[in-house]
Protein backbone atom coordinates (compact mmCIF):
# COMPACT_ATOMS: atom_id res chain seq x y z
CA UNK A 1 0.00 0.00 0.00
CA UNK A 2 1.16 3.53 -0.71
CA UNK A 3 2.07 5.82 2.17
CA UNK A 4 2.20 8.85 -0.07
CA UNK A 5 2.06 9.84 -3.69
CA UNK A 6 2.57 13.21 -5.35
CA UNK A 7 2.00 14.28 -8.94
CA UNK A 8 3.56 17.53 -10.09
CA UNK A 9 3.39 18.94 -6.56
CA UNK A 10 4.74 22.48 -6.42
CA UNK A 11 4.73 25.67 -4.43
CA UNK A 12 5.46 29.25 -5.42
CA UNK A 13 5.80 32.28 -3.16
CA UNK A 14 5.58 35.97 -3.89
CA UNK A 15 8.64 37.74 -2.57
CA UNK A 16 8.97 41.52 -2.31
CA UNK A 17 12.23 42.77 -3.84
CA UNK A 18 13.60 45.89 -2.27
CA UNK A 19 16.50 48.00 -3.42
CA UNK A 20 19.17 48.89 -0.88
CA UNK A 21 19.13 52.18 1.03
CA UNK A 22 16.50 54.66 2.18
CA UNK A 23 15.38 55.64 -1.32
CA UNK A 24 14.85 51.94 -2.11
CA UNK A 25 12.67 51.62 0.99
CA UNK A 26 10.55 54.61 -0.05
CA UNK A 27 10.25 53.35 -3.64
CA UNK A 28 9.16 49.97 -2.32
CA UNK A 29 6.39 51.69 -0.33
CA UNK A 30 4.86 53.38 -3.40
CA UNK A 31 5.75 50.85 -6.04
CA UNK A 32 6.47 47.42 -4.57
CA UNK A 33 8.31 45.05 -6.83
CA UNK A 34 7.01 41.50 -6.38
CA UNK A 35 8.82 38.44 -7.66
CA UNK A 36 7.53 34.90 -7.80
CA UNK A 37 9.87 32.35 -6.26
CA UNK A 38 9.43 28.69 -7.10
CA UNK A 39 10.19 26.77 -3.90
CA UNK A 40 9.11 23.34 -5.17
CA UNK A 41 8.84 22.60 -8.88
CA UNK A 42 6.45 19.77 -9.70
CA UNK A 43 7.65 16.82 -7.61
CA UNK A 44 6.55 13.31 -8.57
CA UNK A 45 7.09 10.87 -5.74
CA UNK A 46 5.76 7.57 -4.47
CA UNK A 47 6.53 6.05 -1.07
CA UNK A 48 5.27 2.64 0.02
CA UNK A 49 4.20 1.89 3.59
CA UNK A 50 7.09 0.74 5.79
CA UNK A 51 9.76 2.41 3.64
CA UNK A 52 12.43 4.66 5.11
CA UNK A 53 13.10 7.46 2.66
CA UNK A 54 15.76 10.16 2.86
CA UNK A 55 14.66 13.35 1.15
CA UNK A 56 17.84 15.23 0.41
CA UNK A 57 19.00 18.48 -1.10
CA UNK A 58 20.94 21.64 -0.26
CA UNK A 59 19.47 24.51 1.76
CA UNK A 60 16.63 26.13 -0.14
CA UNK A 61 16.02 23.08 -2.34
CA UNK A 62 12.41 22.80 -1.13
CA UNK A 63 12.69 19.86 1.29
CA UNK A 64 10.94 21.47 4.25
CA UNK A 65 8.32 23.08 2.03
CA UNK A 66 7.53 19.66 0.55
CA UNK A 67 7.18 18.13 4.02
CA UNK A 68 4.89 20.98 5.07
CA UNK A 69 2.69 20.39 2.03
CA UNK A 70 2.58 16.66 2.73
CA UNK A 71 1.55 17.26 6.35
CA UNK A 72 -1.19 19.72 5.35
CA UNK A 73 0.52 22.76 6.88
CA UNK A 74 1.02 24.47 3.51
CA UNK A 75 -1.32 24.54 0.55
CA UNK A 76 0.43 23.79 -2.75
CA UNK A 77 0.28 26.20 -5.68
CA UNK A 78 -0.16 23.34 -8.14
CA UNK A 79 -0.12 19.55 -8.35
CA UNK A 80 -1.69 16.78 -6.31
CA UNK A 81 -0.75 14.71 -3.27
CA UNK A 82 -2.26 11.85 -1.37
CA UNK A 83 -0.93 10.86 2.04
CA UNK A 84 -2.37 7.65 3.52
CA UNK A 85 -5.33 8.08 1.21
CA UNK A 86 -6.08 11.69 2.19
CA UNK A 87 -5.40 15.07 0.59
CA UNK A 88 -3.26 16.74 3.26
CA UNK A 89 -4.32 20.39 2.92
CA UNK A 90 -8.02 19.50 2.53
CA UNK A 91 -8.19 16.90 5.32
CA UNK A 92 -5.49 18.18 7.66
CA UNK A 93 -7.13 17.23 10.96
CA UNK A 94 -8.11 13.71 9.80
CA UNK A 95 -4.61 13.13 8.46
CA UNK A 96 -3.02 14.39 11.67
CA UNK A 97 -4.27 11.30 13.54
CA UNK A 98 -2.34 9.04 11.16
CA UNK A 99 0.94 10.91 10.81
CA UNK A 100 3.58 12.34 13.10
CA UNK A 101 6.19 15.01 12.57
CA UNK A 102 9.48 15.98 14.17
CA UNK A 103 10.91 19.37 13.29
CA UNK A 104 14.47 19.41 14.62
CA UNK A 105 14.50 23.15 15.13
CA UNK A 106 11.04 23.47 16.68
CA UNK A 107 9.68 22.06 19.90
CA UNK A 108 6.29 20.57 20.64
CA UNK A 109 7.07 20.24 24.36
CA UNK A 110 5.76 22.86 26.81
CA UNK A 111 8.87 24.74 27.87
CA UNK A 112 8.22 25.25 31.60
CA UNK A 113 6.59 21.89 32.22
CA UNK A 114 8.04 18.35 32.36
CA UNK A 115 7.73 16.18 29.20
CA UNK A 116 5.18 13.91 30.91
CA UNK A 117 2.67 16.81 30.82
CA UNK A 118 3.03 17.14 27.04
CA UNK A 119 2.63 13.34 26.72
CA UNK A 120 -0.60 13.59 28.71
CA UNK A 121 -1.84 16.43 26.48
CA UNK A 122 -0.99 14.48 23.33
CA UNK A 123 -3.00 11.51 24.63
CA UNK A 124 -6.04 13.82 24.90
CA UNK A 125 -5.52 15.60 21.58
CA UNK A 126 -5.15 12.30 19.70
CA UNK A 127 -8.03 10.73 21.69
CA UNK A 128 -5.98 7.73 22.83
CA UNK A 129 -7.75 5.14 24.97
CA UNK A 130 -6.39 5.34 28.53
CA UNK A 131 -4.94 1.81 28.68
CA UNK A 132 -3.50 2.16 25.17
CA UNK A 133 -1.85 5.46 26.14
CA UNK A 134 -0.34 4.03 29.33
CA UNK A 135 0.99 0.99 27.45
CA UNK A 136 2.57 3.05 24.66
CA UNK A 137 3.93 5.68 27.04
CA UNK A 138 5.58 3.06 29.28
CA UNK A 139 7.08 1.30 26.26
CA UNK A 140 8.49 4.52 24.77
CA UNK A 141 9.81 5.68 28.16
CA UNK A 142 11.65 2.38 28.50
CA UNK A 143 12.99 2.24 24.93
CA UNK A 144 13.98 5.92 24.77
CA UNK A 145 15.32 5.77 28.37
CA UNK A 146 13.33 8.84 29.39
CA UNK A 147 12.71 7.81 33.02
CA UNK A 148 15.33 10.04 34.69
CA UNK A 149 14.08 13.31 33.18
CA UNK A 150 10.41 12.69 32.52
CA UNK A 151 9.48 14.92 35.45
CA UNK A 152 12.11 17.63 34.82
CA UNK A 153 10.95 20.91 33.22
CA UNK A 154 11.86 20.93 29.52
CA UNK A 155 13.91 24.13 29.92
CA UNK A 156 16.34 22.20 32.15
CA UNK A 157 16.95 19.36 29.67
CA UNK A 158 19.95 19.11 27.37
CA UNK A 159 19.33 19.22 23.61
CA UNK A 160 19.88 15.46 23.33
CA UNK A 161 17.45 14.68 26.16
CA UNK A 162 14.88 17.06 24.70
CA UNK A 163 15.15 15.55 21.23
CA UNK A 164 14.60 12.04 22.61
CA UNK A 165 11.46 13.34 24.32
CA UNK A 166 10.36 15.11 21.11
CA UNK A 167 10.72 11.95 19.04
CA UNK A 168 9.08 9.73 21.67
CA UNK A 169 6.17 12.23 21.80
CA UNK A 170 5.81 11.95 18.03
CA UNK A 171 5.49 8.16 18.27
CA UNK A 172 3.01 8.28 21.15
CA UNK A 173 -0.16 8.13 19.03
CA UNK A 174 1.27 5.36 16.84
CA UNK A 175 1.61 7.26 13.54
CA UNK A 176 1.72 5.18 10.37
CA UNK A 177 3.95 7.76 8.71
CA UNK A 178 6.53 9.91 10.44
CA UNK A 179 7.96 13.03 8.81
CA UNK A 180 11.29 14.11 10.24
CA UNK A 181 12.89 17.41 9.32
CA UNK A 182 16.51 17.46 10.52
CA UNK A 183 15.87 15.34 13.64
CA UNK A 184 19.54 15.08 14.63
CA UNK A 185 20.59 18.69 14.01
CA UNK A 186 22.95 20.02 16.68
CA UNK A 187 23.34 16.70 18.49
CA UNK A 188 26.63 15.03 19.34
CA UNK A 189 27.68 11.77 17.65
CA UNK A 190 26.63 9.46 20.51
CA UNK A 191 23.15 10.95 20.87
CA UNK A 192 22.70 10.98 17.07
CA UNK A 193 23.50 7.28 16.91
CA UNK A 194 21.09 6.45 19.75
CA UNK A 195 18.29 8.42 18.10
CA UNK A 196 18.89 6.71 14.76
CA UNK A 197 18.73 3.29 16.45
CA UNK A 198 15.46 4.19 18.15
CA UNK A 199 13.81 5.44 14.96
CA UNK A 200 14.99 2.35 13.09
CA UNK A 201 13.58 0.16 15.84
CA UNK A 202 10.16 1.85 15.56
CA UNK A 203 10.25 1.26 11.82
CA UNK A 204 11.08 -2.41 12.36
CA UNK A 205 8.69 -3.08 15.26
CA UNK A 206 5.67 -1.00 14.19
CA UNK A 207 6.27 -0.69 10.45
CA UNK A 208 6.20 3.11 10.67
CA UNK A 209 7.05 4.71 7.35
CA UNK A 210 9.85 7.26 7.80
CA UNK A 211 10.27 10.27 5.52
CA UNK A 212 13.36 12.16 6.57
CA UNK A 213 15.33 15.22 5.57
CA UNK A 214 18.83 15.64 6.92
CA UNK A 215 22.19 17.21 6.17
CA UNK A 216 23.91 14.32 7.90
CA UNK A 217 25.10 11.43 5.72
CA UNK A 218 25.06 9.21 8.82
CA UNK A 219 21.28 9.65 9.18
CA UNK A 220 20.79 8.57 5.58
CA UNK A 221 23.13 5.57 5.79
CA UNK A 222 21.87 4.30 9.15
CA UNK A 223 18.18 5.01 8.81
CA UNK A 224 17.11 4.96 5.20
CA UNK A 225 16.74 2.36 2.50
CA UNK A 226 16.00 4.85 -0.26
CA UNK A 227 17.29 8.31 -1.11
CA UNK A 228 15.54 11.01 -3.10
CA UNK A 229 17.68 14.01 -3.99
CA UNK A 230 15.99 17.23 -5.08
CA UNK A 231 17.54 20.28 -6.64
CA UNK A 232 15.96 23.54 -7.80
CA UNK A 233 12.67 22.13 -6.55
CA UNK A 234 12.66 19.00 -8.73
CA UNK A 235 13.68 15.34 -8.19
CA UNK A 236 17.23 14.72 -9.41
CA UNK A 237 17.97 11.22 -8.06
CA UNK A 238 15.69 8.51 -6.65
CA UNK A 239 17.51 5.27 -5.84
CA UNK A 240 18.31 2.79 -3.03
CA UNK A 241 20.78 4.09 -0.47
CA UNK A 242 22.90 0.96 -1.06
CA UNK A 243 23.41 1.93 -4.70
CA UNK A 244 24.07 5.51 -3.76
CA UNK A 245 26.68 4.30 -1.30
CA UNK A 246 28.38 2.25 -4.00
CA UNK A 247 28.30 4.99 -6.62
CA UNK A 248 28.49 8.18 -4.64
CA UNK A 249 29.38 7.41 -1.03
CA UNK A 250 32.63 5.90 -2.27
CA UNK A 251 34.71 8.38 -0.32
CA UNK A 252 35.79 8.41 3.29
CA UNK A 253 37.59 11.07 5.27
CA UNK A 254 40.48 9.95 7.50
CA UNK A 255 41.43 12.59 10.06
CA UNK A 256 44.78 12.26 11.81
CA UNK A 257 45.94 14.06 14.92
CA UNK A 258 49.70 14.26 14.39
CA UNK A 259 52.20 13.80 17.21
CA UNK A 260 53.82 17.00 18.44
CA UNK A 261 56.61 18.16 16.17
CA UNK A 262 55.49 16.07 13.18
CA UNK A 263 55.80 17.97 9.90
CA UNK A 264 52.57 17.93 7.84
CA UNK A 265 54.65 18.72 4.73
CA UNK A 266 56.41 15.36 5.08
CA UNK A 267 53.19 13.31 4.85
CA UNK A 268 53.50 10.40 2.39
CA UNK A 269 51.60 10.35 -0.90
CA UNK A 270 49.30 7.31 -1.04
CA UNK A 271 47.58 6.14 -4.23
CA UNK A 272 43.83 6.85 -4.25
CA UNK A 273 44.05 9.51 -1.57
CA UNK A 274 44.43 13.27 -1.32
CA UNK A 275 45.73 15.28 1.65
CA UNK A 276 43.80 18.31 2.99
CA UNK A 277 45.83 19.83 5.81
CA UNK A 278 43.79 21.73 8.38
CA UNK A 279 44.65 23.60 11.55
CA UNK A 280 43.48 20.92 13.98
CA UNK A 281 44.90 17.93 12.14
CA UNK A 282 45.34 16.37 8.69
CA UNK A 283 42.40 15.19 6.60
CA UNK A 284 42.94 12.49 4.04
CA UNK A 285 40.24 12.06 1.39
CA UNK A 286 40.15 8.36 0.43
CA UNK A 287 38.63 7.14 -2.86
CA UNK A 288 37.27 3.69 -2.01
CA UNK A 289 37.04 2.76 -5.69
CA UNK A 290 40.83 2.92 -5.93
CA UNK A 291 41.97 1.77 -2.49
CA UNK A 292 40.74 0.54 0.89
CA UNK A 293 40.80 2.06 4.36
CA UNK A 294 42.80 -0.95 5.57
CA UNK A 295 45.51 -0.36 2.95
CA UNK A 296 45.67 3.38 3.66
CA UNK A 297 45.96 2.91 7.42
CA UNK A 298 48.59 0.21 6.83
CA UNK A 299 50.68 2.65 4.80
CA UNK A 300 50.31 5.42 7.37
CA UNK A 301 51.32 3.35 10.40
CA UNK A 302 55.04 3.50 10.85
CA UNK A 303 55.51 6.36 8.35
CA UNK A 304 53.60 9.06 10.21
CA UNK A 305 53.43 9.70 13.94
CA UNK A 306 49.83 10.28 15.04
CA UNK A 307 47.99 10.18 18.38
CA UNK A 308 44.43 9.80 17.10
CA UNK A 309 42.65 8.70 13.93
CA UNK A 310 39.03 9.12 12.86
CA UNK A 311 37.34 7.61 9.79
CA UNK A 312 34.06 9.24 8.70
CA UNK A 313 31.76 9.97 5.78
CA UNK A 314 32.19 13.21 3.90
CA UNK A 315 29.55 15.89 4.67
CA UNK A 316 26.26 15.33 2.85
CA UNK A 317 26.60 18.67 1.06
CA UNK A 318 29.77 17.35 -0.55
CA UNK A 319 28.00 14.14 -1.59
CA UNK A 320 25.08 16.04 -3.09
CA UNK A 321 27.44 18.39 -4.90
CA UNK A 322 29.11 15.32 -6.29
CA UNK A 323 25.73 13.99 -7.48
CA UNK A 324 25.01 17.32 -9.20
CA UNK A 325 28.41 17.02 -10.84
CA UNK A 326 27.57 13.52 -12.07
CA UNK A 327 24.28 14.78 -13.45
CA UNK A 328 26.03 17.70 -15.12
CA UNK A 329 24.17 20.18 -12.97
CA UNK A 330 26.84 21.30 -10.54
CA UNK A 331 26.54 24.92 -9.50
Amino acid at each position, binding site marked *: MLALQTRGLGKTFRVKRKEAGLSGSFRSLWKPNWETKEAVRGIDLTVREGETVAFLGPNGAGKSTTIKMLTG*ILHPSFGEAEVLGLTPWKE*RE*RLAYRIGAV*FGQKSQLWYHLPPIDTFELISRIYELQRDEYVRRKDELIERFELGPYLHTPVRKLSLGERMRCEIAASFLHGPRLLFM*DEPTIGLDAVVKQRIRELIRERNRVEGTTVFLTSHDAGDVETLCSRAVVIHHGGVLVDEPVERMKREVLSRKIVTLKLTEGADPAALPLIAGTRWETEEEGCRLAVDLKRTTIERVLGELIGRVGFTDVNVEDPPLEEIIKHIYGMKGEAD
Partner: protein
Amino acid sequence: MDGESNRWAVAGRKAAAVGRIAFRHQLAYKTDFAMRGFFLLFILFVFIQLWSAAYEGDFSKSISGFTLKQIVWYLVFTEALTLAAPPLCSRIEEEVKNGDVAIRLIRPQSYAGYHFSVFASEALTRFIVHLAIGSAIAWPFVGPPAFGYGWLGLLALSAGALTVTFLLLMLVGLCAFWVEETSGLYFVLQKLQFTIGGMLLPIDLMPEWLQRVCAWLPFQAALYFPARMGVHFDAALLAKQLAIQIGWIVLLALAVSRMYRRGVSKLHVNGG
Protein backbone atom coordinates in the same frame (compact mmCIF):
# COMPACT_ATOMS: atom_id res chain seq x y z
CA MET B 1 -26.93 14.67 14.88
CA ASP B 2 -25.17 12.21 17.22
CA GLY B 3 -22.03 12.48 15.13
CA GLU B 4 -22.18 16.26 15.27
CA SER B 5 -22.68 16.41 19.05
CA ASN B 6 -19.91 13.83 19.50
CA ARG B 7 -17.60 16.03 17.42
CA TRP B 8 -18.29 18.99 19.70
CA ALA B 9 -17.80 16.84 22.80
CA VAL B 10 -14.41 15.67 21.51
CA ALA B 11 -13.42 19.27 20.66
CA GLY B 12 -14.51 20.31 24.16
CA ARG B 13 -12.39 17.61 25.80
CA LYS B 14 -9.36 18.65 23.75
CA ALA B 15 -9.95 22.32 24.62
CA ALA B 16 -10.17 21.42 28.32
CA ALA B 17 -6.88 19.48 28.11
CA VAL B 18 -5.11 22.43 26.45
CA GLY B 19 -6.67 24.80 29.00
CA ARG B 20 -5.37 22.70 31.90
CA ILE B 21 -1.79 22.57 30.61
CA ALA B 22 -1.86 26.30 29.71
CA PHE B 23 -2.99 27.07 33.27
CA ARG B 24 -0.04 25.15 34.73
CA HIS B 25 2.38 26.67 32.21
CA GLN B 26 1.46 30.27 33.03
CA LEU B 27 2.24 29.70 36.72
CA ALA B 28 5.92 29.80 35.69
CA TYR B 29 5.58 33.49 34.78
CA LYS B 30 5.51 34.83 38.35
CA THR B 31 7.40 38.05 37.56
CA ASP B 32 4.95 38.85 34.77
CA PHE B 33 2.04 38.41 37.20
CA ALA B 34 3.75 40.61 39.80
CA MET B 35 4.52 43.36 37.25
CA ARG B 36 0.96 43.49 35.97
CA GLY B 37 -0.37 43.47 39.54
CA PHE B 38 1.88 46.40 40.47
CA PHE B 39 0.87 48.32 37.32
CA LEU B 40 -2.81 47.74 38.10
CA LEU B 41 -2.37 49.08 41.64
CA PHE B 42 -0.55 52.14 40.32
CA ILE B 43 -3.02 52.95 37.53
CA LEU B 44 -6.04 52.51 39.82
CA PHE B 45 -4.46 54.75 42.43
CA VAL B 46 -4.03 57.46 39.77
CA PHE B 47 -7.63 57.02 38.54
CA ILE B 48 -9.00 57.19 42.10
CA GLN B 49 -7.17 60.50 42.64
CA LEU B 50 -8.42 61.92 39.32
CA TRP B 51 -12.04 60.90 39.81
CA SER B 52 -12.00 62.02 43.47
CA ALA B 53 -10.96 65.44 42.20
CA ALA B 54 -13.70 65.38 39.54
CA TYR B 55 -16.32 64.52 42.18
CA GLU B 56 -14.68 66.93 44.67
CA GLY B 57 -14.53 64.02 47.13
CA ASP B 58 -18.35 64.00 47.33
CA PHE B 59 -19.58 60.39 47.62
CA SER B 60 -23.25 61.38 47.19
CA LYS B 61 -22.72 63.30 43.95
CA SER B 62 -23.79 61.55 40.73
CA ILE B 63 -22.47 62.19 37.19
CA SER B 64 -24.51 60.60 34.39
CA GLY B 65 -25.88 58.13 36.93
CA PHE B 66 -22.50 57.13 38.42
CA THR B 67 -21.39 57.93 41.98
CA LEU B 68 -17.67 58.11 42.83
CA LYS B 69 -17.84 54.62 44.34
CA GLN B 70 -19.50 53.23 41.22
CA ILE B 71 -17.01 54.86 38.86
CA VAL B 72 -14.02 53.55 40.82
CA TRP B 73 -15.37 49.99 40.90
CA TYR B 74 -16.31 50.32 37.22
CA LEU B 75 -12.64 51.07 36.51
CA VAL B 76 -11.51 48.11 38.63
CA PHE B 77 -13.70 45.83 36.49
CA THR B 78 -12.61 47.27 33.11
CA GLU B 79 -8.92 47.23 34.07
CA ALA B 80 -9.21 43.65 35.38
CA LEU B 81 -10.76 42.60 32.06
CA THR B 82 -8.33 44.57 29.88
CA LEU B 83 -5.21 43.30 31.62
CA ALA B 84 -6.60 39.74 31.64
CA ALA B 85 -6.18 39.32 27.87
CA PRO B 86 -2.91 37.53 26.98
CA PRO B 87 -0.83 38.94 24.07
CA LEU B 88 -2.55 36.82 21.42
CA CYS B 89 -1.65 38.97 18.39
CA SER B 90 2.07 38.96 19.11
CA ARG B 91 1.93 35.20 19.79
CA ILE B 92 0.38 34.44 16.40
CA GLU B 93 2.77 36.87 14.73
CA GLU B 94 5.74 35.14 16.38
CA GLU B 95 4.40 31.71 15.43
CA VAL B 96 4.26 32.75 11.79
CA LYS B 97 7.65 34.50 11.87
CA ASN B 98 9.59 31.67 13.52
CA GLY B 99 7.61 28.84 11.89
CA ASP B 100 6.16 27.42 15.13
CA VAL B 101 2.75 27.59 13.49
CA ALA B 102 3.77 24.24 11.92
CA ILE B 103 3.64 22.60 15.36
CA ARG B 104 0.07 23.87 15.86
CA LEU B 105 -1.09 22.75 12.42
CA ILE B 106 0.29 19.23 12.71
CA ARG B 107 -2.21 18.43 15.48
CA PRO B 108 -5.76 17.10 15.03
CA GLN B 109 -7.19 20.25 16.58
CA SER B 110 -8.60 23.50 15.28
CA TYR B 111 -5.98 26.28 15.22
CA ALA B 112 -8.42 28.88 16.58
CA GLY B 113 -9.72 26.30 19.09
CA TYR B 114 -6.22 25.74 20.45
CA HIS B 115 -5.62 29.46 20.88
CA PHE B 116 -9.04 29.95 22.47
CA SER B 117 -8.26 27.28 25.09
CA VAL B 118 -4.94 28.88 25.98
CA PHE B 119 -6.50 32.37 25.97
CA ALA B 120 -9.47 31.36 28.15
CA SER B 121 -7.28 29.56 30.66
CA GLU B 122 -4.88 32.46 31.04
CA ALA B 123 -7.48 35.22 30.86
CA LEU B 124 -9.75 33.69 33.53
CA THR B 125 -6.83 33.24 35.93
CA ARG B 126 -5.58 36.75 35.35
CA PHE B 127 -9.08 38.22 35.65
CA ILE B 128 -9.60 36.66 39.09
CA VAL B 129 -6.14 37.78 40.27
CA HIS B 130 -6.70 41.33 38.93
CA LEU B 131 -10.12 41.56 40.57
CA ALA B 132 -8.49 40.67 43.90
CA ILE B 133 -5.70 43.22 43.40
CA GLY B 134 -8.13 45.92 42.21
CA SER B 135 -10.41 45.27 45.18
CA ALA B 136 -7.45 45.67 47.53
CA ILE B 137 -7.03 49.30 46.46
CA ALA B 138 -10.63 50.31 45.68
CA TRP B 139 -12.13 48.94 48.89
CA PRO B 140 -10.12 51.15 51.33
CA PHE B 141 -10.71 54.29 49.22
CA VAL B 142 -14.40 54.02 48.27
CA GLY B 143 -15.82 51.14 50.32
CA PRO B 144 -16.97 47.60 49.48
CA PRO B 145 -18.54 46.72 46.13
CA ALA B 146 -22.09 46.41 47.49
CA PHE B 147 -24.09 46.70 44.27
CA GLY B 148 -26.85 44.10 44.86
CA TYR B 149 -26.70 41.45 42.15
CA GLY B 150 -23.92 43.43 40.43
CA TRP B 151 -21.32 40.70 40.93
CA LEU B 152 -23.66 38.20 39.32
CA GLY B 153 -24.11 40.53 36.33
CA LEU B 154 -20.37 41.13 36.09
CA LEU B 155 -19.55 37.42 36.06
CA ALA B 156 -22.41 36.57 33.69
CA LEU B 157 -21.17 39.07 31.10
CA SER B 158 -17.41 38.61 31.64
CA ALA B 159 -17.20 35.21 29.90
CA GLY B 160 -18.83 36.68 26.79
CA ALA B 161 -16.70 39.84 27.11
CA LEU B 162 -13.46 37.82 27.12
CA THR B 163 -14.72 35.75 24.19
CA VAL B 164 -15.44 38.91 22.17
CA THR B 165 -11.94 40.20 23.09
CA PHE B 166 -10.43 36.89 21.97
CA LEU B 167 -12.21 37.03 18.61
CA LEU B 168 -11.19 40.65 17.99
CA LEU B 169 -7.56 39.81 18.84
CA MET B 170 -7.74 36.68 16.69
CA LEU B 171 -8.92 38.74 13.70
CA VAL B 172 -5.93 41.04 14.06
CA GLY B 173 -3.54 38.15 14.84
CA LEU B 174 -4.61 36.21 11.75
CA CYS B 175 -3.52 39.17 9.60
CA ALA B 176 0.00 37.83 10.32
CA PHE B 177 -0.78 35.07 7.77
CA TRP B 178 -0.62 37.81 5.12
CA VAL B 179 1.48 40.67 6.44
CA GLU B 180 3.62 39.12 9.24
CA GLU B 181 3.54 42.46 11.11
CA THR B 182 0.39 43.16 13.12
CA SER B 183 1.60 45.56 15.80
CA GLY B 184 0.11 48.60 14.00
CA LEU B 185 -3.32 46.98 13.75
CA TYR B 186 -3.12 45.81 17.34
CA PHE B 187 -2.27 49.36 18.45
CA VAL B 188 -5.43 50.66 16.77
CA LEU B 189 -7.60 47.88 18.25
CA GLN B 190 -6.22 48.49 21.74
CA LYS B 191 -6.88 52.24 21.56
CA LEU B 192 -10.43 51.63 20.32
CA GLN B 193 -11.01 49.35 23.32
CA PHE B 194 -9.58 52.00 25.66
CA THR B 195 -11.82 54.75 24.29
CA ILE B 196 -15.05 53.65 22.66
CA GLY B 197 -14.89 50.28 24.46
CA GLY B 198 -15.48 52.16 27.69
CA MET B 199 -12.29 51.26 29.49
CA LEU B 200 -11.28 54.74 30.60
CA LEU B 201 -14.77 56.05 31.27
CA PRO B 202 -18.31 54.63 30.97
CA ILE B 203 -19.98 55.13 27.61
CA ASP B 204 -22.85 56.88 29.47
CA LEU B 205 -20.49 59.81 30.05
CA MET B 206 -19.77 60.22 26.34
CA PRO B 207 -21.67 62.56 23.95
CA GLU B 208 -24.99 61.27 22.66
CA TRP B 209 -23.80 60.87 19.06
CA LEU B 210 -20.75 58.82 20.17
CA GLN B 211 -22.95 56.58 22.30
CA ARG B 212 -25.04 55.86 19.18
CA VAL B 213 -21.87 54.94 17.24
CA CYS B 214 -20.62 52.70 20.09
CA ALA B 215 -23.93 50.83 20.12
CA TRP B 216 -23.14 49.48 16.64
CA LEU B 217 -19.60 48.34 17.49
CA PRO B 218 -18.43 45.20 19.33
CA PHE B 219 -16.04 46.99 21.72
CA GLN B 220 -18.68 47.87 24.35
CA ALA B 221 -19.60 44.16 24.62
CA ALA B 222 -16.00 43.43 25.65
CA LEU B 223 -15.62 45.95 28.50
CA TYR B 224 -18.52 48.32 29.10
CA PHE B 225 -21.31 45.72 29.41
CA PRO B 226 -19.86 43.63 32.27
CA ALA B 227 -18.33 46.60 34.14
CA ARG B 228 -21.54 48.67 33.99
CA MET B 229 -23.66 45.67 34.98
CA GLY B 230 -21.29 45.16 37.91
CA VAL B 231 -22.11 48.56 39.38
CA HIS B 232 -25.66 49.04 37.97
CA PHE B 233 -27.46 45.69 37.97
CA ASP B 234 -30.55 45.53 35.75
CA ALA B 235 -32.04 42.08 35.01
CA ALA B 236 -33.83 43.18 31.81
CA LEU B 237 -30.70 44.87 30.48
CA LEU B 238 -28.60 41.82 31.42
CA ALA B 239 -30.69 39.61 29.11
CA LYS B 240 -30.42 42.18 26.30
CA GLN B 241 -26.65 42.56 26.70
CA LEU B 242 -26.16 38.80 26.82
CA ALA B 243 -28.08 38.54 23.55
CA ILE B 244 -25.95 41.31 21.99
CA GLN B 245 -22.78 39.53 23.14
CA ILE B 246 -23.97 36.25 21.63
CA GLY B 247 -24.74 38.06 18.38
CA TRP B 248 -21.25 39.55 18.23
CA ILE B 249 -19.65 36.21 19.15
CA VAL B 250 -21.46 34.46 16.29
CA LEU B 251 -20.60 37.22 13.82
CA LEU B 252 -16.95 37.51 14.86
CA ALA B 253 -16.51 33.71 15.00
CA LEU B 254 -17.75 33.48 11.41
CA ALA B 255 -15.31 36.22 10.42
CA VAL B 256 -12.43 34.42 12.21
CA SER B 257 -13.34 31.13 10.56
CA ARG B 258 -13.47 32.71 7.09
CA MET B 259 -10.27 34.64 7.65
CA TYR B 260 -8.45 31.53 8.92
CA ARG B 261 -9.55 29.45 5.92
CA ARG B 262 -8.32 32.11 3.51
CA GLY B 263 -5.15 32.86 5.50
CA VAL B 264 -4.00 29.28 5.93
CA SER B 265 -4.09 28.75 2.17
CA LYS B 266 -1.76 31.76 1.76
CA LEU B 267 0.48 30.84 4.66
CA HIS B 268 4.22 30.81 4.14
CA VAL B 269 5.87 28.96 7.03
CA ASN B 270 9.32 30.35 7.71
CA GLY B 271 12.40 28.63 8.93
CA GLY B 272 13.45 25.10 7.97
